[in-house]
């Protein structure tokens, strides 16, 4: 699907959720997104523990006994005929990312303001593409963090062996 472009910036960059990493220093999770075009640089979003777990469950397509919050949103959409078309990471202010969720029903499109965690959680469950604007991509944090991330993961593995 063509993500289109937002006014004033170049074409959107499609991202794929690569993995969710635990940040042992804080009770947060790091969602690591990779570019679909194969560019090796990553995009990272820090999210809360429960938000991170919700993304991880969708990524692992693990089933829970009862529907979790984003499964419920998806299920409401299925009942009402609402399609999640795409989600776009549209802005970053004071290290907080902003996302927009594009919904469609009977030819009517609506956009919703969302936290990236909710947007990504829903997108994964609905097989909707995830995009980032050129502007937000340029301003992403942790550009040099790939090395740090791999160190972190090695440490995590070590900790589990103890």
């Amino acid at each position, binding site marked *: 699907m063509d993500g289109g472009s937002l006014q004033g910036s170049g074409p959107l960059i499609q991202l794929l959720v690569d993995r969710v990493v635990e940040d042992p220093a804080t009770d947060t999770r790091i969602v690591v997104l990779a570019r679909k075009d194969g560019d090796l640089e990553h995009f990272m979003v820090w999210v809360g523990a429960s938000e991170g777990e919700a993304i991880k469950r969708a990524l692992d397509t693990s089933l829970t006994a009862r529907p*979790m*919050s*984003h499964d419920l949103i998806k299920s409401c959409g299925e*009942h*009402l005929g609402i399609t999640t078309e795409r989600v776009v990471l549209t802005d970053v202010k004071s290290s907080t990312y902003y996302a927009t969720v594009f919904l469609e029903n009977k030819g009517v499109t609506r956009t919703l303001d*969302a936290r990236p965690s909710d947007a990504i959680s829903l997108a994964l469950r609905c097989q909707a593409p995830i995009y980032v604007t050129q502007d937000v991509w340029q301003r992403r944090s942790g550009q040099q963090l790939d090395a740090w991330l791999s160190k972190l993961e090695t440490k995590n593995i070590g900790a589990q062996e103890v």
Partner: protein
Amino acid sequence: MITQMQVKGLMFDPYNNAYIVILRDDDQVEMLPIWVGKAEASSISLALEKVAPPRPMTHDFMKSYLDAFDAKVISVVITDLSENTYFAKIHLMYGDSEYAVDSRPSDAIALALRTQAPIFASESVIRKQSSEELGQWLENLKPEDFGKLDS
């Protein structure tokens, strides 16, 4: 038969390291405790205290998702209790049709509080949960167990 319930409050359950949403009927006769996770409790607490967080939380997003297409939450019903798991239904009105969506009670309550939708419990759920058991549990609580929601 269903009975309308009000959310009376949230408590921390130190024995299970979980939170309990206390529902009571209008006559204050029946009490229904529902154990929920930390994130769900925090979402219900924000709605109870009418706190508007700087960014939309998951249930705020859920509300705006439904609002975007004028779908209304008519009511939520706690329908069943089996092996300590509660089941709920969210009743939606969209166009001229009504839909019942399967949900966890925690999501149903968090959404109902944000949409001013009434919360009901089925008679069988109220009958099944032994209030005697809860009474004993409450007696064992110490005063310091209360008010720990923010910790």
